[in-house]
């Protein structure tokens, strides 16, 4: 049901491309539209109800072997839009890329759940109130907030070879957070999830916060040194994946600045590590039938048994590297497409959570960090200040880690993983991952003396 652009979108895209004829060698146009209704609670009170609408039309044109992009949100200014892109293309990147042709067999991926149409603002307000009512008894001294949102969106695409497609997306998100302040100690907890379908199950978020409070309410002393660290699913996402994803970006590799360049087929990580990028899973927010340049979607291993399998290429970097594009293009209005991932799955291992803690003995569990993405990310450096993490001693969680920094190089610590959890967690509908235990992670606490 979601494979074709609407007649109105297609007509607009055709009118847009008509202005490019005779002035360009090839062109593509797309429309993206969205509407969301966030409801937010602050300090346990309903604070704001919003309605947000966005609409934009973007194009890319190819002129004399160069390309340019532009965008507008005024459907009456199509000619200006095209002229501006052509002017920019005069100075734009040289390109020999060939736009895709219509392909007969494209997977049909469902990304829209009609149940989203039944969600009312009143129902979201009620759900938010219930969420706060359920959270409050967990730790009555904490102050809680919540946000809920539901959204719908459309993306429609047409290129000058006649590839056209459209997808509709539905979205639903629910987040709850709490802050417990005692003297100047601030303890931040929170849970939540998003996906394509309405999901009113709040119990798992309440359970998650109950666990955070049980483990973290008291502060535990943490010594400095290199030690085993258990990266919980959120930390796998923020700490371990970030540098890796910049390293497998085709542009970074083409420039020679990625440590993963030229290493496809090589054992880069521990052989138990496998990462799959799959845009064909139904009802996941990043799923799609085609990528944003009209290349049909496909499931692919990024890492298989520790071996690097894929570098991500959109059309331009694929053309420059002399390889096939990997159906990885994503694009915003007024910018060139880039390469990125869709839904990622990291394969689970066989260790139960208790096994992992026993194996760890003395170490740290890390859930959330702040200050990520600083330092030499391309080189694999990852680190930051532990916002939510716990001290483990003798295989038991003894309290929260505070005022402590974590630093590691992912290419070092993922070479020999200590253990991978058997349980996986789905995060934001875009990553499914177990917890991963690594050794030799640098932990630097601030000493007690000041």
């Amino acid at each position, binding site marked *: 049901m979601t494979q074709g652009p609407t007649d109105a979108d297609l007509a607009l895209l055709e009118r847009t491309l008509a202005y490019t004829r005779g002035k360009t060698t090839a062109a593509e146009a797309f429309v993206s539209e969205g509407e969301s209704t966030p409801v937010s609670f*602050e*300090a346990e*009170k*309903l*604070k*704001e*109800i*919003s*309605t*947000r*609408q*966005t609409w*934009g039309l973007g194009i890319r044109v190819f002129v004399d072997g160069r390309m*340019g*992009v*532009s*965008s*507008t*949100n005024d459907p009456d200014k199509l000619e200006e*839009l095209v002229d*501006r*892109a052509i*002017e*920019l293309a*005069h*100075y*734009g990147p*040289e390109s020999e890329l060939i736009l895709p042709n219509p392909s007969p067999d494209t997977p049909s991926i469902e990304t829209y759940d009609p149940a989203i149409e039944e969600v009312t*603002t*009143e129902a979201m307000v009620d759900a938010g109130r219930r969420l706060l009512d359920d959270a409050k008894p967990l730790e009555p001294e904490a*102050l809680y907030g919540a946000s809920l949102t539901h959204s719908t969106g459309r993306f429609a695409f047409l290129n000058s070879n006649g590839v056209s497609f459209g997808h509709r997306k539905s979205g639903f998100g629910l987040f709850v957070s709490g802050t417990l302040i*005692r003297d100047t100690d*601030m303890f931040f907890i929170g849970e939540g999830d998003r996906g394509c379908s309405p999901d009113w199950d709040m119990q798992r978020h309440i359970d998650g916060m109950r666990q955070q409070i049980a483990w973290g309410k008291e502060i535990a002393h943490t010594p400095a040194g290199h030690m085993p660290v258990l990266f919980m699913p959120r930390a796998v996402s923020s700490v371990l994946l970030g540098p890796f994803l910049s390293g497998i970006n085709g*542009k970074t590799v083409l*420039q020679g*600045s990625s*440590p993963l360049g030229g290493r496809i087929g090589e054992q880069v990580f521990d052989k138990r590590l496998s990462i799959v990028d799959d845009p064909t899973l139904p009802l996941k927010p990043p799923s799609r039938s085609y990528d944003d340049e009209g290349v049909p979607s496909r499931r692919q291993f990024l890492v298989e048994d520790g071996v690097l399998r894929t570098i991500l290429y959109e059309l331009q970097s694929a053309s420059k590297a002399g390889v096939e594009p990997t159906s990885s293009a994503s694009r915003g*209005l*007024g*910018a*060139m497409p880039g390469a990125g991932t869709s839904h990622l799955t990291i394969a689970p291992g066989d260790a139960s959570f208790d096994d992992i803690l026993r194996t760890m003995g003395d170490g740290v569990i890390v859930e959330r960090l*702040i*200050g*990520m993405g*600083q*330092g*030499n990310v*391309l080189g694999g450096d990852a*680190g*930051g*200040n532990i*916002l939510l993490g716990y001290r483990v001693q003798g295989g038991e969680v003894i309290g929260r880690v505070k*005022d402590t*920094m974590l*630093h590691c190089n992912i*290419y070092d610590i993922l070479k020999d993983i200590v253990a991978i959890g058997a349980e996986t967690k789905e995060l934001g509908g875009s990553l499914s991952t177990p917890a991963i235990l690594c050794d030799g992670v*640098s932990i*630097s606490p*601030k*000493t007690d003396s000041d």
Partner: protein
Amino acid sequence: MRDEMTQALSGHNADYIELRLEELDTNHISMRGHEIDDIGGSSSRGGAARAYVNGAWGFVTFTQSDNLRERVATAVRQAHLASGEGGELVRGEPVIAEPPPVLDNDPFLVPLDKKVNLLQEYVEAMWAVPNIQTTSIGSGNRRRVTHFANSEGSYIRQERVDVTFNARAMARRDNDVQQYGVSVGSLGDYNVLEGRHDEMRDIAEKAVALLDAPQVEGREYTVICDPILGGVFAHEAFGHLSESDFVYENDRMKEIMVLGRRFGGQHLNIVDGASVPGLRGSYHYDDEGIPARKSDLIREGVLVGRLHSRETAGKMGEGVTGNARAMDYRFAPIVRMTNTFIEPGTATAEELISEVKDGVYCKNWYGGMTSMEMFTFSAGEAYRIRNGRIEELLRPVVLSGNVFTTLENLDAVANDLDMNEGGGCGKGGQSPLPVSNGSPHIRIQNCLVGGA
């Protein structure tokens, strides 16, 4: 436009209503290596209506500017649906103003070929250094024209042009990749991008030098921050904590951030102000139509003020400060910093360094982040200090601390205030908001420095 907006605002039942109509234009060029990697532009029009009823907001954004009256009515309806908990906004005087934009050299009037040529010259300057693996460089401009009207009878038209530039060089040896870069920016002045050829060579040389630099041992040191990093420190370590939306409904935070609390020594003075002219965080009126001003936050080590919106000021019974800012029409205004800086002291930077036995001299920055009490920020360039002398170059370091102890440990402020206009600030999904921050050289005792 004013009449149309005024009409759309009249006759609704709400405590306060505001309407913004905006024009946004952007363009950018970026190069990776010797080639242009991205060149593009966008043009959009849109608006936002916001209504306050009894302590809660309704907020509507749109891209088609017809039916303004109906958009406002929707915001009012939503505010009524959310209302009920009570609350009082600070009222403002009606303002009718169209202040002229700051446009010393409008980047939108600079021909495209001139912009491309400048970037190409800079790229050549970086590649003149041996052992460079690659470079990335980019410049961008954003024009935001805002028509603001509210139920108090204000109509304000403002135009701001934001200019940004960044350059980075990467050096590689085997699997070791090191990089160094700068970010600069201005309010409406393309000229700040020009004449930086020597600086580009310097960036490339530093990236190469980092390949041979050792990593610092992770522990506490006495740290000297240069004015750029000192400014990031003022912004991250303290500035965010002074934003009242984190405080106004949280009794515990109110206790912690009580005016009169001592945060540091007599030598510590921190201010924020959009009325400081000509900087990236400067403007005449905020996005709630409140006049900009300059606010003392810390005076002689003591907390004396904080940053407010109409709502936070009303709830806390304090005066508005003109710090409610929105990225653009897609967002509601929230409490934000503008130009934040540590005021200069009397010592020289050399004196600060000469007294350090065992320390790290940190310059430039990659970024920073805060979670209220805890902050981290990272230096792009760092050197060991031993016995008062700057010695070997180190790999980039991450500094981290707890604001309550670190401001106490800030024991010396030099006399060489300088503003950094290369950064943008992110909060509540609104990023990057143009801000500036600055500081003289500062010294922090017992500062946690992250290393491997």
